[in-house]
């Protein structure tokens, strides 16, 4: 695996790998999001308890799962960068943090919209909501730290350390919040009865999850590419690339 990974410590190799992967992610994202959402929003049967308002699940659940997945990915990238001193891994941390923050925000926002008709309130201090909110704060901390350094190489190292500290804390925060909530308010209607989901509802959910994941992959790769270009702007291969693009435009 090390031999396989090692070439991608070079930014140029990573850039070209991204270039190859981007179209796949883009098309799979379009396919997954269109099929999953149309199936889910229009054709899946409505819930016997919640009627049609449950359909927001097709956006809410994928974004919530990805918000945590991206944090894990970011922390792994940070760890790789800190241990093996790989520059591209540091760049990946910086590119993933805002994407993850947006996913967390979408999850919170859609959750709040869903909560209003179901629980009768926009916000409850339910364990899951609270830990998602803290996750958003952790993302904001990483982003804020990254942007307060002028030297971006130093910035991404610092952001990486905070990301690793955050990921050690994340399970502790999650379980402590769960425990806190059950201690303080056991019998409120925070957890509605959720029957194991029917297959005709599950399939569109899985498809939109895959679509959202591919969309995230697409955005992260594109951002990584632009980050590489921005930081390596004086490298010969970047200059050559720019000349090629420029030359292509000239020929047109």
């Amino acid at each position, binding site marked *: 695996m090390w031999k396989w990974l090692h070439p991608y410590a070079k930014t140029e190799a990573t850039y070209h790998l991204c270039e190859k992967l981007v179209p796949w992610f883009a098309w799979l994202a379009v396919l997954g999001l269109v099929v999953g959402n149309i199936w889910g929003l229009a054709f899946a049967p409505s819930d016997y308890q919640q009627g049609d308002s449950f359909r927001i699940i097709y956006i809410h659940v994928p974004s919530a799962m990805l918000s945590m997945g991206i944090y894990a990915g970011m922390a792994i990238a940070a760890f790789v960068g*800190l241990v093996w001193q790989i520059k591209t891994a540091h760049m990946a941390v910086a590119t993933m943090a805002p994407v993850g923050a947006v996913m967390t925000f979408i999850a919170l926002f859609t959750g709040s919209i869903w909560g209003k008709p179901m629980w009768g309130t926009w916000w409850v201090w339910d364990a899951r909501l609270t830990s998602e909110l*803290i996750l958003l*704060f*952790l993302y*904001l*901390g990483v982003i*804020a*730290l990254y942007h*307060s*350094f002028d*030297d971006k*190489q*130093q910035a991404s*190292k*610092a952001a990486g*350390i*905070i990301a*690793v*500290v*955050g990921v*050690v*804390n994340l399970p*502790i*925060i999650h379980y*402590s*919040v769960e*425990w*806190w909530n059950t*201690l303080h308010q056991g019998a409120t209607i925070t957890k509605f009865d959720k029957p194991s989901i029917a297959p005709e509802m599950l399939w569109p959910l899985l498809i939109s999850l895959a679509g959202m994941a591919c969309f995230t992959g697409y955005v992260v790769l594109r951002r990584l590419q632009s980050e590489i270009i921005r930081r390596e702007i004086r490298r010969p291969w970047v200059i050559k690339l720019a000349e090629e693009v420029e030359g292509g435009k000239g020929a047109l």
Partner: protein
Amino acid sequence: MNKALVGIAKRDFSLAFRQSSELLQPLIFCLLVVSLFPLGVGPGPVTLQKISGGIIWVTAILSSLLGLERLFRDDFRDGWLEQVSLSDCSQSLAAVVKITVHWLTSFLPLLLLSPLLALFLNMTMSMYTALVLTLLIGTPLISLVGAIAVALTVGLNKGGVLLALLLLPIFTPLLIFATSAIEAASLNLPYVGQLAIIGALTLLALAFSPFATAFALKVSQH
């Protein structure tokens, strides 16, 4: 080696006591914030007693953020940290010493102040015992984890708000377990479990924080 560490400790103590206003300000802040709450939520002793644990802990965490920067800021500016990194003294051990001194000079005074805060908020004796125990076990965690964040932001000259943004989410478990221990004490329930968890968190931080702090200082000195 040991001599160097003892020297660092002595130096930090004398620096802390010579800049005594920096030592006192967080404490005065703590006292002020706690005395604002009865004005804000009403002087009813029952209400105050119910929220006292949370108020004192939130205030302690906030006031600790004011004093945390003291940990590395001046040493970073005058090049002292650089000299340590050049010497054969291990940076993580130096960090442990500095964190210990910081805890002794900023949280021990808070513990001494705590009877007054408890009095203001109408705490019972058993609640106060729980408060002291949680502060004793929990505040080292603030110093230890705070040191990592201070080490990261020390070169930025805009630590204040950023430090809060980085640290407050990480302190949520501490706040939860500490206040629930105090609440359990108010109901005369055992709260050893909460104390044990806080202790575990502190030990975990003690194991990893010195290395993370030393590494973060290296990044900052880059």
